[in-house]
């Protein structure tokens, strides 16, 4: 990944130190990939649609939160208390923007095609993706815009391995959201409706589940997670670009497929695995930056050929 060039690796580190440094980077990247991968897997699980616009839903969070921070005139770290408030504000805005967009796209692009052949909503998704990218491009232009570094560069160093406060915050935010999602799906009424609809929509309707509302809710939740990932990405990579969502979306999609699409645990596992593979490729494959994406997509091809159900794919038969 070109944009990963901003992640600095200390020059004087030992081989072991370098390895652990790459693990640290991989986990941080993986946390963000996992959040985006969940959106693919939730939507696929419930309506068997690959939401190709999902990466752009993520991108819109990065673009809007950049506009917010520019409008607030913030260019440097505002101090600890304000920083926490700012982080919460950005997360709220990013999640709201992406959730609303994802809901809207479902409502106007996918819902009218619910009974159409499956290729139709897929093509509609690609169309939605282009629309979202083009509008962002018209608004922010075609080049990278820097996101101000609002996090102080403080961290802890273990030997030569540096763990930034920001990295810890990214992983904590991601894990809290993923845990919240898991509890929501397990325990709430709407969560149970989502699981039932994913397993058998007609039977779910026969329980009194409102299928349209459940599908909308799935897009809202998937969008919100992508929105949170967009904010974290802005803080970490700090480069906003209208086309970011395409590439990151494909990587997160690979993560979802690797874990077993439709399975939320699989999406999380796949996200972290892909993050680690990418970080290690960058370090250990000669010319690693150039190869990172190629390795990830080679993995996608290999899974699709040899284990399409993914690492945690469902094996339980539907009928006995």
């Amino acid at each position, binding site marked *: 990944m070109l944009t990963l060039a901003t992640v600095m690796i200390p020059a004087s580190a030992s081989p072991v130190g370098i390895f652990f440094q790459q693990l640290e980077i991989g986990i941080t990247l993986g946390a963000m990939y996992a959040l985006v991968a969940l959106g693919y897997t939730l939507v696929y699980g419930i309506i068997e649609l690959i939401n190709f616009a999902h990466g752009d839903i993520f991108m819109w969070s990065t673009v809007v939160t950049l506009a917010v921070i520019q409008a607030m005139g913030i260019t440097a770290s505002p101090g600890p208390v304000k920083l926490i408030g700012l982080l919460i504000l950005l997360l709220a805005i990013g999640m709201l923007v992406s959730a609303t967009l994802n809901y809207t796209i479902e409502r106007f692009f996918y819902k009218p095609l619910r009974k159409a052949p499956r290729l139709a909503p897929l093509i509609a998704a690609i169309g939605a993706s282009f629309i979202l990218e083009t509008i962002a491009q018209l608004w922010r232009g075609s080049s990278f815009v820097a996101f101000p570094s609002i996090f102080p560069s403080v961290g802890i160093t273990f030997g030569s391995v540096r763990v930034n406060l920001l990295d810890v915050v990214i992983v904590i935010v991601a894990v809290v959201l993923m845990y919240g999602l898991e509890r929501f799906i397990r325990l709430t*009424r709407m969560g*149970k*409706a989502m*699981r*039932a609809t994913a*397993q*058998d929509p*007609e*039977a*779910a*309707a*026969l*329980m*009194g*589940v*409102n*299928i349209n509302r459940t599908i909308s809710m799935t897009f809202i939740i998937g969008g919100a997670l992508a929105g949170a990932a967009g904010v974290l990405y802005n803080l970490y990579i700090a480069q906003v670009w209208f086309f970011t969502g395409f590439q990151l979306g494909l990587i997160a999609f690979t993560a979802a497929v690797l874990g077993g699409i439709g399975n939320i645990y699989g999406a999380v596992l796949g996200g972290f695995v892909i993050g680690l593979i990418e970080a290690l490729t960058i370090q250990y494959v000669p010319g690693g930056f150039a190869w990172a994406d190629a390795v990830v997509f080679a993995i996608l091809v290999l899974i699709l050929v040899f284990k399409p159900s993914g690492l945690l794919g*469902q094996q*339980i*038969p*539907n*009928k*006995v």
Partner: protein
Amino acid sequence: MLEIHDVDTYYGPNHVLRDLNIEVNQGEIVTLLGANAAGKTTTMKTIFGIVKPRNGTLTFKGERIDTMGTDQIIAHGLALVPEARRVFPRMTVFENLEMGAFLNNDRSVIDQDIERMYALFPRLKERAKQVAGTLSGGEQQMLAMGRALMARPQLLCMDEPSMGLSPILVQTVFDTIQEIRKQGVTVFLVEQNAFMALNIADRGYVLQQGQIVLTDTAKNLLDNDLVRRAYLGG
């Protein structure tokens, strides 16, 4: 209680139900008999709004239900044990039962009802924590019936509950249906097993190629020549 009035249902260009008229009264067990592809399952799907009729009306306790969505129809007091059971394969038995009570928000009532289902179907209690996809066909049938009853329906519709079950299990299923009726639930039963169905039913309808060709009391239908020849092998 349930009135199906002059209903025509199509799948694309195929005219599946023709001028269908069925009535189910409170407290009855009514059965709809018919061979494969006679339109039995389509009748159920039409009642539950899964397919919409092109002509005709359906009313439940005087209220039009053919204009409602499936979830609203359930909210009005109907429940279906669908063909091939359709339990949620990756949910546990307990969670499947909970799903049956999806529209009920009273936790204590749900817990009581789950205990009632365990009393009615002891096998479900043994398998409470097992995912439903791993149950045997008979156990899945029990679960599908228990799940439908969890909605506390006034009218329970069942689509071929005996399909694919051993004779002993078929007997259990039909005993349970009678038990359900004793508890005050009206039953509308679609069956291929005409003998078993007519033995517990009050009245019956015979469906052929989407049309009702015969209706009478269950007792008379058991003696009817057409029924004997077509469905009872006599």
